[in-house]
Structures are given as C-alpha cells and as structure tokens.
C-alpha cells in the first residue's frame, strides 16, 4: 500500500485511465491520417453508442423488447431540425434544443409505454415495431396540407452546434493545431458519450436499476416484492427514449440534413443487434463491441472496398 492506497484506487488504474484518455484524445488525428471520413465514422460510432446505451436500458435492464427504438431517435432528430433550420426560420441554440429534444422523445416514450404496459414478450415487440413505422410514415407524409417535415425530401441546412461565434462545423486552428469540423464534433460527442455512460453506470447500480433487473427476471415476483412495476417500466421507456432523443439531436446537427429514410426499421434492428452483440444488460464488455459495430454498416456502405478488412475484423 503506497500513497495511492489512501484513496482506494491503485495507481495502476489511474495510469490506465490516463492512457485511455490520451488514446481517445489523439484518436481523431490518427483517424484523420486515413481521411476525414474516418473521423466521421468515429462520430457515428459514438452516436450509435449513445443509442445502444439508451436501448440497453429498455431491452437490457428492463427486459422489454423494443423493435421501434429508432422512432425516439427520429423524434430527437426532427425536433432539433425543426427548431434550428430555415424550415420554420427558427434558430435556437443547441443547449436549449437538446433538453427539448430529450423531453419530447421522453414524452413519446411514455406515449408508447403507457398503453403497452400489459403486453409481454413478442406482443410488445410487434407493437413497438408498429409504433416505429407509424412515426416514420408520419414523418414521410406530414408535408401536406401543411408542411411540417418537408416529407421524403427531408430537412436541409440544419444549424451545426454553435457556441457564440464558435461553430463546430468549420475548420479552425487553436495553439497551432488545425481542428476540422468532424474533429471538433468528436470531442463534443466524446464528452456526451462519457456523460451517457456515467449516467448508465450509476443507473445500473441504483435502486431503480435493481428494480429493472428484478422485473426482467420475474415481473410477478418483482411486484410481490413491492416494486411499482407500472412506474418502473414507464421510467425505463422514458429514459431510454430520452437518450435516443439526445442522440437524434446530435445526429441532426452533425449531418445537417435528415430525411425519414434514416429512421427505418433496419436502423432499429442494427441498434438492437449492437445491444445483443455487446451482451444484453451487461456493461463493460459491451462498450467496445458497441462502438465497433456501428462502423460496419456505415463504412461498408460508403467505402466498401477500402474497409472490407476493417469490417470483417470488427464484425
């Protein structure tokens, strides 16, 4: 026991944390050597990590199979897009929209959760799937008679994240180092993702997390032990949804363009596959798998030949 023993955390752990932090800090510059597109892929990986963590609350912790999770992502994305684009001429700053997006997504989560509390297993799966499709069809068609979502063409020219005159989308140099748009987003997303991870870790060990686990293992027994299963399940839906909403808002800002096509059932399934791949309801082992797996569809779609090896390694 040396000086580090006093805090209860050995020096080795701190050294490991520092190494990981340095690696994460340098990563976007290493990736940029292979092209900015790789930095974008990293950013997508983190957005999908947030999504997967959100879905993990619903599917992993509470054991409620949700096949329409992407709907909340869509709600978050469209909230951001409508409140900061020329669509309605509203340009709110992102720190006001992020909570609004999370809140609206949360509302939709409750909206989906409340009527489906009685459903179990596969019935719940198909209802959530239907819910996801309904949201997508509405986004696709709400351009007539009053134009809300611009229909299948999607919303363009969405504002990037901006703090005062500092925009996340443009290239700038600080201290002699040039930061490109995606690299700046990378650090923002990294902070957000770490935030989401911390919230998730704390949730898992909380009273609520244990209640979710109890419901997952045996709902009747959980109820008998005095857990208010209705509220706890609703909370799972609401919290999962709000994380999805945040991820959607961030997606909207990084892409600066969204259309209903990005929110199909296939995306829900990819996110679900990530959760399953990472190990449902578990945490540490899954994070790596989760942040790797989203690369595959993205990079396979965009640059199939160059990254075939990377895909096969990651999948």
């Amino acid at each position, binding site marked *: 026991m040396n000086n580090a023993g006093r805090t209860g955390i050995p020096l080795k752990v701190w050294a490991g944390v520092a190494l990981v932090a340095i690696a994460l800090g340098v990563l976007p510059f290493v990736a940029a050597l292979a092209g900015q597109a790789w930095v974008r892929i990293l950013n997508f990986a983190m957005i999908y990590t947030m999504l997967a963590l959100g879905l993990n609350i619903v599917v992993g912790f509470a054991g*409620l*199979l949700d096949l329409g999770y992407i709907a909340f992502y869509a709600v978050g994305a469209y909230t951001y897009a409508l409140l900061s684009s020329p669509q309605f001429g509203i340009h709110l700053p992102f720190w006001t929209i992020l909570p609004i997006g999370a809140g609206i997504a949360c509302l939709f989560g409750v909206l989906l959760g409340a009527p489906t509390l009685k459903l179990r297993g*596969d*019935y719940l799966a198909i209802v959530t799937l239907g*819910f996801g499709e309904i949201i997508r069809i509405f986004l696709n068609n709400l351009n007539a008679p009053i134009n809300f979502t611009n229909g299948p063409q999607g919303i363009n020219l969405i504002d990037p994240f901006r703090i005062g005159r500092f925009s996340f989308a443009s290239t700038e140099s600080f201290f002699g180092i040039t930061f490109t748009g995606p690299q700046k987003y990378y650090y923002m997303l990294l902070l957000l993702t770490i935030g989401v991870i911390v919230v998730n870790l704390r949730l898992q060990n909380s009273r609520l997390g244990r209640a979710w686990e109890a419901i997952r293992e045996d709902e009747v027994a959980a109820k008998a032990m005095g857990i208010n299963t209705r509220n706890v399940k609703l909370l799972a839906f609401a919290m999962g949804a709000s994380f999805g909403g945040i991820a959607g808002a961030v997606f909207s800002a990084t892409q600066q363009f969204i259309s209903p096509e990005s929110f199909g059932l296939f995306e829900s399934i990819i996110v679900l596959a990530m959760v*399953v791949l990472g190990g449902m309801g578990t945490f540490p082992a899954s994070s790596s798998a989760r942040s790797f797996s989203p690369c595959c569809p993205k990079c396979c779609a965009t640059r199939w030949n160059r990254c075939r090896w990377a895909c096969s390694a990651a999948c």
Partner: protein
Amino acid sequence: METFLQQIINGLTLGSVYALVALGYTMVYGIIGLINFAHGEVVMIGAMVALSVITGLIGANTPLPAVIIILAGLLVAILVCVAIAYSMEKIAYRPLRSAPRLAPLITAIGMSIVLQNVALMVWGRNYRTFPTLITPTPHFIFGAAMTDLQMLIVVLAALLMGGLVLIVQHTRLGMAMRATAQNPQVAGLMGIDINVIISAAFVIGAALAAVAGLMVMAYYGIAHYYMGFLLGLKAFTAAVLGGIGNLAGAMLGGILLGIIEALGAGYIGDVSNVCGLSSLSDALQQKCAANDGQVSLFGSNYQDVFAFFVLILVLIFRPSGLLGERVADRA
C-alpha cells in the same frame, strides 16, 4: 355504398394474401416460439422465381396455354421456397434452439437481410412487371367491380386455408404438430421426431408463402426485391392481431387487416376533410374552393398506418390478440 362494397372486395383480396402469409408466421411461432422475420422474404423470393419462370416460358415462345405457364411458375416457386425455408431452418435456427429467445430473433432478421440482398444480386433493384397473361374481366356485384383475378385469389386462398386446417386437424402429421406445439419435450417422449415436425411447419409455411407471392404479384402487377418486407410485417401484424400461434386467428387477422386497410384508405380522405370548417377561416375557404371542396388532413398515403394503429388498439384491450392465449413472458 358502392365505394364501401368495392373497398370490402379489395380488402378481402389483400386480406386473403395476408392470411396465407400470416399462417406461415403463426405455425412456426406456435411450435418453436420464433418470430421468423425472414418469412416475408420467402414470399418475395417466391414471387420473383415465379416471375422469372413465367417470363422465361413466354420468351421461349412455347405453345403452352397461359394456365400451364402460370402453374409451372408456381410449381418452381414452391419448390425453391420450400428448399430455402428448409435449409434456413436447418442452418440458421436449429443450432440456436436452446439459446436465449433474442438470439434466434436477431438471426431471423439477419436471414431476412441475407435473402433480400441475394434477391438484389439475382434480380437487380428495378421493379419488374408481371406480364398480363389473363386480362382481368370485371364482374359487377351490386355496382362494385370484382375481377376474376380477385375471385381466383380469394377462392384459392380459402381452399388452401381449408386444406391446412384439414391437415392440422385430421392427419397424423397434424396431430404431431399440435402435440409439439403444446409441449415439445413430452411430444418427443411420445415418439414424435420433433425435428421433422419443425421442418414440416417451415416447409408448409414456405409453400403457402410462394402461392401468396405469386398472388400478390399478379394482383399488383409488379415485383421488387424489397416487396417482402412490408408484406411480411403486415402479415405478422395480422398473425398477432388474431392471436399468434393460432391458425384460425391468423386467417381472421389477415382478412380483418386487409379489410380495415382498404376501408381506411378509402375513407380517410373524406373523414379528415376539413372543408366543413371553412366558415372558421378565409384561407381555408379559398383553398377548399380551389380544390373542389377536398382538403384532407390525411390521404391514402397513410394506408400503412392503419394496420399498426388497429393492432395497437386491439392489443390494448385484448393483450393476447383476438383469439390468442398467453405467450411467453420475456424477450
């Protein structure tokens, strides 16, 4: 009234197809509790194979009558679908039979993606038109038109469903299937080869799917590598609506879903017409005048929403479907 009858007829036709596909979902679910997401893709493959055979035979200028050509296409489609479903079960699902429930589900989704991409590679991404071998002649029933193609679809679907019920209720195979659905372990102890029964469920479902594929292609006149997705989703919705795992439920659910969809698409424009409120606003009044008094909030492009909306409503009040029993608790 004519619109109503017409939509009922259209809905009945589409509903029969849904019911045939839903039977495939519900049989597999009833026996091994798996949502076979790839079933919609089997329908698509059936349609595509039948189309290829039929266009091939027409292109070869064979002096065969149209009926023989269609039957040949159907036969080949059934064989291909059965082969695909059989090998799919053997390769993808059998090794996962004792795995947690989510693993085979994800595998099924994966199979669906694989089949879709195979179809994309083989048939390309263009819409393919079905050659008009028989020009549909409409027959009028109380002013509503029903083509002989629609009649054929409804009658054939009814015959196939009746045949399936006969098999399940009155043959040794059917008895074995029912026993396996109730309790696989005990059924195995009674000397039933469970693997054969499960394969049989997949095979019968695939044969029905091939027929449904040909029907839906002939009805709409086009086929596409992506057509199986939404069709499969709706058929599964139909199966859940009727109570999954229940054959009668799947038939009822399919036909109900088809009719609800058709009625919804037919009437939503009138129901959500806001011109009745035109006294409230001048802008609305002008718009109504410009559009012949038809300004609807929702149009028939919301057709696909009805299926899911009705499903959610039904499940709120009857959480296990119209005719269903309780299902397993967790994912």
